[in-house]
């Protein structure tokens, strides 16, 4: 039966003796929703885990090239993005807290703040990639292709290939996150996410934490490996 409100209408199952039982609907299964989303996130961990595995293999093969390439990245912009993402994880978490404590307006404000920080992250990343492009470091440019006079050492080509792939994929997850937050706002506005039914908000906050978590390893691996005078 189609209905517009979020009122939960339980399904009734009747056993052979004619007794009625309420069927547990997925809409109200908070723990099931959370567990299911964790399973999805673990597939993300495995995808990025495989990429880190490839990265580590290349790193062992071309150690010196990786350190040199890492030292060429802009640590200031990377650091700014690290802090931006860190604060956005806080605003997302506070938004969920506000929702659970009944402050829907405050929750929406925090989601908008998180989206603003996400856009800032993408803007900084775009600036960084633009600078890389101007310096001849970008996918498809001669410097990152072997066999020509502008070619970088092979290890550096591998490093930058992985850098653009992994930070690009991470950026794609940021864009997906913005889309999810817009959808969440729509659901809140239509009364389908409420302080009592907040599993969608909870899971999107989890997603945003995962995006933050991935960056926690992407940033030091790419940006900090080449920092300092002596490297291990």
């Amino acid at each position, binding site marked *: 039966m189609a209905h517009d409100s979020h009122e939960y209408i339980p399904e009734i199952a009747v056993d052979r003796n004619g007794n009625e039982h309420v069927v547990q609907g997925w809409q109200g299964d908070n723990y099931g929703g959370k567990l299911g989303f964790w399973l999805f996130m673990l597939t993300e961990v495995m995808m990025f885990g495989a990429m880190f595995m490839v990265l580590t293999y290349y790193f062992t093969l071309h150690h010196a090239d990786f350190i040199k390439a890492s030292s060429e990245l802009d640590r200031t912009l990377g650091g700014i993005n690290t802090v931006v993402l860190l604060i956005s994880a806080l605003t997302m978490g506070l938004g969920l807290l506000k929702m659970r404590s009944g402050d829907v307006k405050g929750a929406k404000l925090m989601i908008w703040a998180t989206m603003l920080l996400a856009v800032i992250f993408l803007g900084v990343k775009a600036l960084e990639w633009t600078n890389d492009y101007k310096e001849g470091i970008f996918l498809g440019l001669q410097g990152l292709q072997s066999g020509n006079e502008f070619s970088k050492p092979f290890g550096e080509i591998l490093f930058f290939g992985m850098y653009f792939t992994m930070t690009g994929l991470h950026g794609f997850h940021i864009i997906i996150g913005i889309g999810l937050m817009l959808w969440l706002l729509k659901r809140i506005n239509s009364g389908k996410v409420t302080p009592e039914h907040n599993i969608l908000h909870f899971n999107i906050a989890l997603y945003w934490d995962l995006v933050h978590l991935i960056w926690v390893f992407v940033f030091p691996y790419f940006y900090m490996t080449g920092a*300092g005078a002596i490297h291990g």
Partner: protein
Amino acid sequence: MANHTTVDYKKERGNYYKVLFGLLALTALTFIQPSMFLTHYTFGMQMLIGTLKAWIILMYYMHLKGEVLIGWTVVFAVFLVLFFFVIVMIDVNNFQFADVSHITSPAQ
């Protein structure tokens, strides 16, 4: 069944800010470590700090603290990734075509 868990916003907010300052301190450590201490072990130290940050995020921001079933599911997934990581590393260290592979022996 709705999620009827009510929260004390002010109390929980304090915890969130504590975690934020902890993560900011570790981020600052990330920046100063390569030039301040254990400079011979930059990569290892960076990964160690990253792991510590990840643990804090998982426990407090992602609410894994006290979640037994989900916690073990995460441990299993991380174990699986690490298991394949070790297998692949052993395999590539004994790569029989290392001398002719474009990746391991690129043409200069």
